[in-house]
Structures are given as structure tokens and as C-alpha cells.
């Protein structure tokens, strides 16, 4: 019974193939030069082994050889660099209109918030054939969202949002791991990415038990009395939020800033840093009162208030 020896990971995303082709090229170059050196050593070792009647003959240094084994590696590494960085920029560029999913990494679990509803812990259900953009936040230390089968990886840095996108191509369940050491149960911070047919995904999404993040966000919006300043026209102390998502807004300091997730998060935690033009820096900070999940829910709620040109 031949043991099923795993040699190559599954290719289950659009970028997996292109990354593997580059890896195979690098493997070929590496094996070629390794074999070259090993063979030369073996051949010279046998051919010039010390034996009576053979004395070492001096060999003058030949500049042409030195130039050769400087130029050839330079050329090869230039190819590797251009191919590698070109592919990197392409793979990192998320296509417009990708489906947004919010993911929070906290010490030793992943919580996932689908905009249209359903929260998951340690699981990520995605439709096949559609680009998905994950917005990653960390509650505590640096984690790393890594799906080997998709060849995608991105550190989740606390204090800011990082993003990662992929488009799954094959139905099935693929392993999700945390690849940046984050503490005692770092090796337990794993999960599954379940790729489903788009239709099955919609059904799965529909019958979620808990209410969608937008509704949870609205509840938070009320309980923390954000509405008092931002909603009621009469007391309009805070800038209006309806239809603002994605627009670029002029600040008191004169610079224009995109009204996106990062700006919303920054304004919740450090409100007086970038104040909208025409408003005074009177908003209190909610730093230790809202965790990353709740901030995502408030963002989901603000997004549900209609978006400007809908660019997250």
C-alpha cells in the first residue's frame, strides 16, 4: 500500500497556478546550480585525488571566468526579481467589486463577519469563482492569515487594517492557519475555508442564526449614543453619516481623506486626529469600550446607510 506522500499543495485559487510556475522555475535553477556544484566537486575529487605521480599545477586566475559567474547570476536574479515582483503586484491588487468579509484575529481564534449576515468562528464560507476581499484586524498581537491552498498570506497587524484577496476556484474545504507566532496556542489558531457553489453559499448565508453585523452595528450605534450627535438633524454636532461611505471628505486641517473603514476606525478610537471640516474636536474616544468585532459591526451599519462611490 503506497503511502500517499504529499509533495505539492492543492491549487485552489486563481493565483496558485502562477505562484507555482514561478516556484518550479526557481526550483529548476536551484537544482541546476546545486547539481553543477556537486558534480564538479565529485569529478574534481576523483580526477585530482592525491596519488603518486600527480602534483598540483598552479592555475592562474582567469578574469573571464570571474566575470562569467558574476554576470550569469546577476542575469538570473534580474529575471527572478522582475517576474517575482511583477507577479506580486498583480496578485496583491484586489479586483474592483470584490466581496468584502471582515475577519478579526484574536488570541487563538479567527472570527469572521459576513456583511450580509452570519458570524463564524474558525470557519470561512466563501462562494467559488468570485473575488473575495478580507479586511483583517487584530484584537491583540500580530497574527497572520494564511491559506496554503490559495497561496495567500497576510500579517494581521493590531492597530490598523490589512487586506487580503483571493478567488477560490475549486469546491472543497481548505486549511486556514495562523502563520505569525502569537502566543501559547498559536498552533491551535487554525480553521477551514469552505468553498461552496454560489447558490449553496446564498442558502447558507440566508439561514444564519444571528442577525447580520449591520443590525448589530445599529444596536451599538444606539447604546453608545452615537446617534445623539451624528443622526438627529437638530443637534447636528457630528458630521452626517448617511451616504458618506467611500466619499472623500475635506478635513479641518485642509487635507482630504477617504471616508473608508480605516478612517471610521481611527475616528472611533482617536476622534480628534482628523476632524471633518466645519466641526469641532469634541467627540469622546471609545478606545477601551469597543473591540474590533464591534467596530466592524458599526462600519457595517454605516455602510448600510448607503454608500458614496462604494470604494472600501
Amino acid at each position, binding site marked *: 500500500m503506497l503511502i*500517499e*506522500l*504529499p*509533495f*505539492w*499543495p492543492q491549487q485552489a485559487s486563481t493565483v496558485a497556478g502562477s*505562484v507555482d510556475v514561478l*516556484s518550479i522555475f*526557481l526550483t529548476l*535553477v*536551484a537544482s541546476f*546550480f546545486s547539481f553543477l*556544484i556537486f558534480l*564538479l*566537486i565529485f569529478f*574534481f*575529487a576523483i580526477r*585530482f*585525488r*592525491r596519488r603518486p605521480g*600527480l*602534483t*598540483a*599545477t*598552479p*592555475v592562474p*586566475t582567469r578574469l573571464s*571566468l*570571474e566575470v562569467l*559567474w*558574476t554576470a550569469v*547570476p*546577476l542575469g538570473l*536574479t534580474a529575471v*527572478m*526579481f522582475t517576474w517575482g*515582483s511583477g*507577479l*506580486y503586484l498583480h496578485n496583491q491588487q484586489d479586483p474592483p467589486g470584490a466581496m468584502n468579509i471582515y475577519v478579526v484575529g484574536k488570541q487563538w481564534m479567527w472570527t469572521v463577519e459576513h456583511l450580509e449576515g452570519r458570524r463564524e468562528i474558525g470557519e470561512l464560507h466563501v462562494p467559488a469563482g468570485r473575488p473575495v476581499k478580507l479586511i483583517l484586524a487584530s484584537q491583540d498581537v*500580530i497574527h*497572520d492569515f494564511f491559506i*496554503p491552498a490559495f*497561496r495567500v*498570506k*497576510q*500579517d494581521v*497587524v493590531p*492597530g490598523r487594517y*490589512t487586506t487580503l484577496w483571493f478567488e477560490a476556484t475549486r469546491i472543497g474545504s481548505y*486549511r486556514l*492557519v495562523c*502563520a505569525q*507566532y502569537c*502566543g*501559547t*496556542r*498559536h*498552533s491551535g489558531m487554525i480553521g477551514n475555508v469552505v468553498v461552496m457553489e454560489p447558490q449553496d453559499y446564498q442558502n447558507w448565508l440566508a439561514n444564519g442564526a444571528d442577525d447580520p453585523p449591520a443590525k448589530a452595528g445599529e444596536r451599538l450605534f444606539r447604546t453608545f449614543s452615537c446617534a445623539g450627535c451624528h443622526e438627529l438633524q437638530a443637534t447636528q454636532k457630528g458630521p452626517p453619516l448617511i451616504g458618506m461611505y467611500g466619499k472623500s471628505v475635506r478635513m479641518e486641517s485642509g487635507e482630504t481623506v477617504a471616508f473608508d473603514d480605516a478612517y471610521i476606525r481611527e475616528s472611533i478610537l*482617536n476622534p480628534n486626529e482628523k476632524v471633518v471640516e466645519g466641526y469641532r474636536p469634541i467627540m469622546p474616544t471609545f*478606545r477601551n469600550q469597543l473591540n474590533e468585532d464591534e467596530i466592524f459591526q458599526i462600519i457595517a451599519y454605516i455602510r448600510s446607510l448607503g454608500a458614496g462611490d462604494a470604494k472600501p
Partner: protein
Amino acid sequence: MTHANVPENYLNASWGWRSWLLTRDHKRIALLYLISITLFFIVGGFFALLIRLELLTPAGDLVQAETYNKLFTMHGLIMIFFFLIPSIPSVLGNFLIPLMIGARDLAFPKLNLLSWYIYIIGGVFTLAAVVTGGVDTGWTFYTPYSSTYANSNVILTALGIFITGFSSILTGLNFIVTIHKMRAPGLTWLRLPLFIWAHYATSLIMVLGTPVLAISITLILLERSFHSGIFDPKLGGDPLLFQHLFWFYSHPAVYIMILPGMGVVSEIVTCYSRKKIFGYTFVALSSLAIAALGFLVWGHHMFVSGASPFAGMVFSMLSFLVAIPSGIKVFNWTATLYKGSISFDAPMLYALGFIGLFTIGGLTGLFLATLAVDVHVHDTYFVIAHFHYIMVGGAVMAYFGGIHFWWPKITGRLYPEVWARIAALIVFIGFNLTFFPQFLLGYLGMPRRYHAYPEEFQVWNVMSTAGASILGLGYLIPIIYLLWSLRYGRVATENPWNAMGLEWQTPSPPPESNFAATPIVTEEAYSYDIHT
């Protein structure tokens, strides 16, 4: 030679504890380092075996998760800061640099002894941290885990590493001044042995890199005690600032570990091929090129860490440039074998092993410098395999080769040749069996620092653990027979391998003041063609 009329040398020049613990003789300080380094090597190696035992099974069943985290942290810290960085410079460098340049001692003998004491004090701090509960932040101390969330002996270990850094600075400073100011007459730069070039380049890195590690550790200590937010994102800090400061030293540190090994290999390959090195100036200058370029590439540790893609492009390009000088060295060593008269003594086996394994280690580094591929293999076992091929396949192989090559000069005794060759082969086989499967594990997506892993990776992990036990055995044999040789080994002549170099013109073991009269150098290095 009966014990009675053994000539006066640095070993029997004076007796008693004080003569060793207060010595200012660079040769005795080298032996003090040799003993302390071997102890740390055994401790670090023991942790490595525990890690490999744990990874025999997919489930984490040998030790708890927290203990496993402490094991790989301690393995990393002890092996890097207490074995690999000091090994060749402090033992072979201290012993041989004055001998090779015809000097009576290093420029600052008192600083040299102080460097050993600082190393020991740093070691005591770190071992104290190990004994009283260990530290579980990984040898990289990434914040905010190390500065806020970890609750193990971070401060004690950080102090240990901070102190040991000064030992490295003092050694580097000593070497630079000695090589500049105390060369024998006629010994111009282009006649220097490549061992000296390699140690000169290493010392530049030690002097210019280590302080930045010292300041990043100081900032962790400050942040951990006052929580003022330097690396804490909640207070406006940026965790990536620590990564930049840390890797600014820690990448050149890997060149501190490998460059001396390259110097040793250049000496061994020329001696056992009875030939001048091929392309002397190229090999010498590529040591300096590695030292200089080594400081520009640290960003390739941070391609997926949230650093900007622009920085990723810059660092990826520079990382490819630093691979070129290493390639030049490998090609020149191989070309040196051509038309030589090669004998396969143990040092030569270690040197040839070094060239082969360092080539694989270097070429796999290209995967990690290529942006698109690094996204997939970063922080996986591919990285572990890459740097162990360089560190264990390269630096440790060269260290063992150098110890064997200069053992007659250091101790006046010859090691048993047959046993040495067997041990070299065992080490080569055990090493490859341990670390080659890890390339596959890495590409398959097994993350590093994992206490438990999915079942389908078990095959490769079992092979790796088997290899580790062979490797462990391979390292024990030399320790045994080298100790044995101190008493029973054949007494060595002045130049048992009739190698070239000023150090081989002194008796074995050399007298306390090295040379009766300062030698005058008239020929180039490795002039094996003139002397058969």
C-alpha cells in the same frame, strides 16, 4: 617526547585557576571561549532534540504548548547568540588572527578578556531565565507580544542578550584594530590569508550592527516596564518599527555567522588541494561585499508583515544583489579544486560538505527574496530549512572543519583520522535527512513554531526527527574523540598538514609570545606552488 622536556608553550607557561581566569593571552582566551561555547552548543542541541521528538507525532503530546514555545525560543536564542555568533570568531579568530599576521597578541588583550567575561555574564542571565521558567516569545521578540502580552522571563532574557551583544562588539573592535595596525612587515592587504579577510568583514558587521540590536532590546525593556506605547498600537506605536530595528541587526547577524566559516573553508580547501585559491582578490572582496550589502536587505523578513509594497520591491532587489558575492565564493572554491592534489582528511570533508550545503542554502534563499513566492513560504518550514542549511550545513560544518584543521596547533595533539572521517559522514547524512524534508513541509504549508500539525505532514516530520537523532550522534563523536586526543592523541609536529600560513611556522602548541622575532612576509598567501 616524555613529559619532562616538553618545551615551554602557552598551555604550560603558568598553572592554576588565576592563570586561566585572569589571562590576557589571546590563545588562552580562545580556549575559555571554546569550553563555554561547547557547553552552550550541547544545551541548545538538547532543546533541538526535544523539539524534534515532540514533532514526531501530529498531536502535541510530549510537552504542553507553552513548554514547546519555550523550547524553540530557547533553542533559537542559545544557538544564535551563544554558539553561532561567537563560535568561529571567538575561538578560531582569537587564537589564529595574531598568529596569522605575525603579531604577539591582539591590540587590546584586556578588552579581549573582558569580552569573554561579558559573554559569560550574559550567558548566566539567559540560563537563569531558562531555569526559572524560560521565555516564550521566539528568538525574534516580536512586539506587541513580547512587550505587552508575554508573561514569561522576557526582561531577564533580553538583559542576557543585551549584555552578550557587547562581547560581540568588543571582539569585532579588537579584530579591526589588530588587522589594521599590527600586521607583520611585508604583510600587505593582498597577502593576507582569506581567514583574516573574512574576520575583518565579520568584525565590521559586529561593530556596526550589534548596537542597533542593543537599542531595540532596550526599547522592549522600556516598553515592557512603562507601557509608554513605543510599539503598542493602542497608544499610537507601530509594531513594525521594532521589526525594522531588530532585523537591521539580525540579518547581518546571519552574515556574522557564515562569513568566518567561509574564511575557514578557504584555508582548508587550499591546503588539501595543495593549490593557491582561485581568484584571491574576488574571494577577499566578496567578503567585504557581503558585509556591506548585508546591511541593505533586512526588509525581506517583512514582505507580508504589513510593510509597504514599495519597500518590498526595494528590499527584494537588494536581497538578490547580496546573493551574488556568495555565488562568486562558491564558484572560486570549486575552481580551486581543479588541477589540485586533493586529499580527503576530515577538515576537507567538512569543507566540501560546507560548499555543497551552503550552495543549497543560498539558492533556496532566492525563493524567499522573490516577492510572489515569499508570500506563500514565509513563516513556514521552508524558511526553517533554508536557514538551517546555511547555519548547520554551513557555519557548524565549517566550525567543525576549522576545529579539526587547527586542533594540532591549538592542543599539540592529532585527532584520530578514521573516526573523524566517519563522524563527518554521519553529520552530512544526518543533516540532509533532517532538513531536506522540511523544504517540502514548508511548501506544503506547515507553519513554523507549531506545536501540533495536520496528520498528512507526519511522514516528513518522522524522517526529519530520524535525521536529527543521527545528526545528534554525529556531533557527539567528535566531542568524545577530541577530548580523548588531548591525552592519547599522537603528538603533533609544527606543521602536520604542511600548510601555508604564519601560524604553521610556530611550534604546536605555540609559545606564549607566539613568535621569537616578528616574521617578515615576502610571498603571497597559499603559495603552495613554490613549496611542495
